[in-house]
């Protein structure tokens, strides 16, 4: 009992203590130096705003909308990235046809497309999903291409010696072998997809956390904005945690250095 308690303290003590110190400094130091509470709200007022937003029913609905936009966009972007990577690595013709444009497009800051997409697709969730999809597409694409091309020749020789079809080679060896790389891309893509959904909401939306953030900004409700940032952090942690969970579940077999996705 004593041991378990000290183990718990050992594990959670330092981060908790750190948190308490940061919150205490944040709560009291700005007042000491005469920083306006309007510009830098104290933690206690942020908690108050959080409760207020929740009470007015603004939090849960907007949270779910942004979550769905990011998640659906991420899923669509990743699946199409893996599919395009498959085509590019399977066929030299497709590679030569597409690669120059993919590389060129990759160099473009994707958020610059957001205004255009909102004009084309409208201010509904669809435009946010599309922006999230485009922005998470590229890191997954690049990593999947590297993953599909990085296979030990002996593993392929094993398949070829059995006269395996190209699809069998892909399904049995190449695809599973590429998962550490693909997940390295997914880890980046999931975080970018939230950015994509938010940018879309900034440009034109009537719902979502980005929209809420803009409205609070117009009202100069800085404390409320901090509350939304807090919720966005939670959203990020949930989505990243989801990908991390799948990562560990499917890539249990990779050595830690590959698992962390060094590429």
């Amino acid at each position, binding site marked *: 009992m004593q041991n378990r308690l000290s183990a718990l303290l050992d594990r959670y003590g330092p981060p908790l203590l750190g948190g308490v110190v940061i919150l205490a400094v944040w709560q009291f130091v700005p007042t000491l130096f005469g920083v306006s509470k309007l510009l830098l709200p104290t933690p206690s007022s942020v908690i108050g705003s959080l409760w207020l937003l929740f009470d007015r029913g603004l939090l849960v609905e907007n949270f779910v909308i942004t979550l769905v936009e990011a998640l659906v966009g991420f899923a669509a972007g990743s699946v199409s990235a893996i599919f395009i990577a498959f085509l590019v690595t399977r066929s030299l013709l497709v590679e030569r046809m597409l690669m120059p444009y993919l590389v060129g497009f990759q160099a473009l800051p994707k958020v610059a497309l957001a205004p255009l997409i909102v004009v084309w697709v409208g201010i509904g969730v669809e435009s946010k999903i599309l922006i999230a999809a485009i922005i998470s597409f590229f890191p997954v694409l690049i990593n999947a291409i590297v993953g599909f091309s990085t296979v*030990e020749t*002996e*593993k392929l*020789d*094993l*398949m*070829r*010696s*059995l*006269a*395996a079809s190209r699809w*069998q080679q892909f399904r*049995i*060896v190449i695809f*599973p*072998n590429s*998962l550490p790389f693909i997940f390295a891309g997914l880890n980046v893509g999931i975080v970018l997809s939230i950015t994509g959904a938010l940018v879309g909401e900034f440009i034109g939306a009537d719902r979502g956390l980005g929209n809420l953030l803009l409205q609070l900004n117009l009202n100069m409700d800085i404390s409320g904005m901090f509350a939304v940032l807090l919720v966005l952090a939670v959203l990020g942690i949930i989505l990243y945690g989801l990908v991390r969970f799948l990562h560990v579940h499917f890539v*249990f*077999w*990779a050595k830690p250095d590959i698992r962390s996705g060094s590429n």
Partner: protein
Amino acid sequence: MTPTGMLIDVRQVRKQFRSRSGTYMEALVNTSLSVDAKQFVCIVGPSGCGKSTLLRMIAGLETASAGAINIDGVSVTSPRRDIGLVFQSPVMLPWRTILKNVLVPAEVLKLEPVAAKRRALELLTLVGLDGFGDRYPDELSGGMRQRAAIARALMHDPKILLMDEPFGALDALTREAMNLELLRIWQASTKTVILVTHSIEEALLLSDKVAVFAPRPGFVREVIDVPIERPRSAATRSDPIFIQLAKRLRGHFEAAPVAATA
């Protein structure tokens, strides 16, 4: 057609590789070798003598630049499904259990799943991995993984087993045990085996016939029969014929400085 019982016939084979600078490098010249059905043949030679290349050509993974390779009188132009291949490393798929790894050939060849699984379990017993089917490759030792690779090579019941320095990465003790194990497996399954090795002892202990390769460019310097009675055991090493043949084989390599690595 081929003469009686002859299964693999390598005739006057040459293999060139093109280097990056555009020049050609001869890997093998005028290489001939014939292997009878159910024979155990070893290819011995120093590194870089083209013995692995020859094996890959017999497996249909590479094509000869000149000459002919026939199996059962049919020219080898691409991989055949009656060959089992064992590499220097186990080449396990780390995301699959040992059983699922052994089942890979069954999956590729679309064998009936229930019968295939039964056979895979039998093979695991044969190679001494009974009860390890549910483990993942990284939970097993190198020797155990290589046994699993042998079981996998036997999965689709191939006529021919091609082994490229299969025990090269193992320590000497494990290697000796694996040699005797392989003899037992071979006797139980009666396959035609071609095994590439650096080791003169390994070659003599295992084979009916040893082909000695010379390096750069590789060719068959001599083919000697090994008339030592079977079944063989660790004691075979002190057989007078064994000692005499070992001396003769070593003579081939002492001439060349590369022999130090053999």
